[in-house]
């Protein structure tokens, strides 16, 4: 089996046995073997999460722990207002480079005794090295699984096990006890729904997941539906909507740049690429992110070129993510286009040699259920 010797080694999730028992179909993703779907299938899993509660194993994501003193150092890498982030709260941010591009996006949680970051699996090693080059005491958390429970019934299902979560608001973080284990809980997610992300010690992860799945409102959901859910919610995916050559302003994430870090703010600039990003905030960026709905039924996926005309002309942008939105019953896409494109212009995606019309629409595609 010479092929096996050269095949990339995949890391198994801590709950791999449970996923197999649940009938998961697994695929390689960022070096991990991940459940892409369960027997329900992507469509049903997506709709279940929008109506009830979906349980996602996102243990592939990087969990990092830093001393509280690191918030100041983090501000030198992330254009977010982190020094004013209250204890018990979490904030979204991006690591930028000197060109104003994005190295990764992440969550920063300010807790009583430390700071916890959650970063993308594919960028975990990069982020760890990047942080360690600038900040002391950065620790990779390797003894915890990470689960997400998402959907309108997530709060009811989780409070049946951990009553304290009912009082949390969107982006609150807390440590709560369950059967002797410390759960690191945030009220957040990647679906557009109300929900929680729960870091569980490895020793209790499976019994905790099984306790959630024992609730009739909860079903296991794979990576396939995670992607369609986040796409409908208009949430960016690192490597698609953002990368080292796309700024947070272009990617529609300028909201994450706090007032204190903007021109005239108390701690204006002071992050990599600040000159470019602040200039774009003041005078506009060359490109902008856009929500798109194809007129026809054909999904248009990442890398489809976008044009302003049905025939001829140069491309004005590309689709960065696209597919079928189960809650909308039709194709949807996110694109990055020239900023001077009129906001009401019909665009054309070139698919299999044909130009097919798309309309620009506001994001998110679905209304969100965050409990603010």
């Amino acid at each position: 089996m010479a092929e096996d010797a050269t095949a990339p080694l995949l890391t198994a999730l801590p709950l791999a046995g449970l996923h197999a028992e649940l009938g998961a179909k697994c695929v390689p993703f960022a070096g991990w073997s991940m459940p892409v779907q369960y027997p329900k299938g992507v469509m049903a899993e997506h709709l279940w999460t929008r109506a009830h509660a979906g349980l996602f194993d996102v243990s592939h994501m990087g969990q990092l722990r830093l001393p509280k003193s690191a918030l100041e150092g983090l501000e030198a890498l992330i254009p977010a207002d982190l020094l004013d982030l209250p204890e018990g709260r979490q904030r979204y941010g991006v690591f930028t480079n000197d060109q104003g591009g994005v190295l990764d996006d992440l969550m920063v949680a300010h807790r009583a005794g430390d700071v916890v970051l959650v970063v993308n699996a594919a960028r975990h090693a990069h982020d760890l090295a990047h942080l360690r080059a600038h900040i002391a005491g950065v620790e990779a958390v390797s003894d915890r699984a990470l689960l997400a429970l998402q959907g309108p019934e997530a709060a009811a299902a989780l409070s049946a096990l951990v009553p304290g979560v009912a009082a949390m608001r969107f982006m609150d973080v807390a440590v709560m006890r369950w059967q002797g284990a410390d759960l690191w809980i945030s009220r957040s997610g990647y679906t557009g729904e109300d929900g929680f992300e729960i870091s569980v010690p490895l020793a209790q992860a499976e019994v905790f997941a099984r306790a959630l799945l024992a609730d009739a409102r909860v079903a296991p959901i794979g990576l396939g539906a995670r992607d369609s859910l986040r796409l409908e919610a208009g949430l960016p995916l690192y490597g698609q909507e953002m990368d080292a050559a796309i700024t947070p302003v272009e990617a529609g994430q300028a909201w994450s740049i706090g007032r204190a870090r903007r021109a005239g703010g108390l701690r204006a600039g002071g992050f990599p690429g600040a000159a470019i990003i602040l200039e774009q905030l003041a005078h506009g960026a060359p490109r902008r992110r856009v929500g798109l709905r194809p007129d026809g039924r054909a999904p248009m996926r990442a890398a489809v070129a976008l044009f302003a005309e049905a025939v001829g002309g140069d491309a004005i942008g590309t689709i960065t993510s696209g597919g079928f939105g189960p809650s909308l019953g039709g194709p949807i896409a996110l694109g990055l286009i020239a900023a001077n494109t009129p906001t009401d212009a019909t665009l054309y995606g070139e698919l299999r040699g044909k130009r097919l019309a798309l309309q620009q629409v506001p994001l998110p595609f679905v209304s969100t259920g965050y409990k603010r």
Partner: protein
Amino acid sequence: MKYTEDHEWLSLDGDIVTVGITEYAATQLGDVVFVELPELETQVARGDEIVVIESVKAASDIVAPLDGEIVEINAALVENPALVNDDPTGAAWFFKIKIEDDAALDEFMDEDEYKEHIGE
């Protein structure tokens, strides 16, 4: 019924072959959300990508299994792509192709051979 390595089923009636995808293929694809069919009366060559089929997850092609002329297409699939998951070997046939020589079907797998091919 005959089967191709691309998980198509072929059903011969006179010189007309009806083509669809197997239940195994439909399950692998997942929820089908879009189907684009070939145009009627086009001459196709074996291996031509003549159907686009997209699931929630990905796009794939269905190739012409034989040389011939497209004489009928199943427009119901365009309106209701989910038929491919509901009834892949019945209502969800894709197209009918008129062939010159029915001996061309001989090389394809029979049901037992196909089951072995997919490891059942």
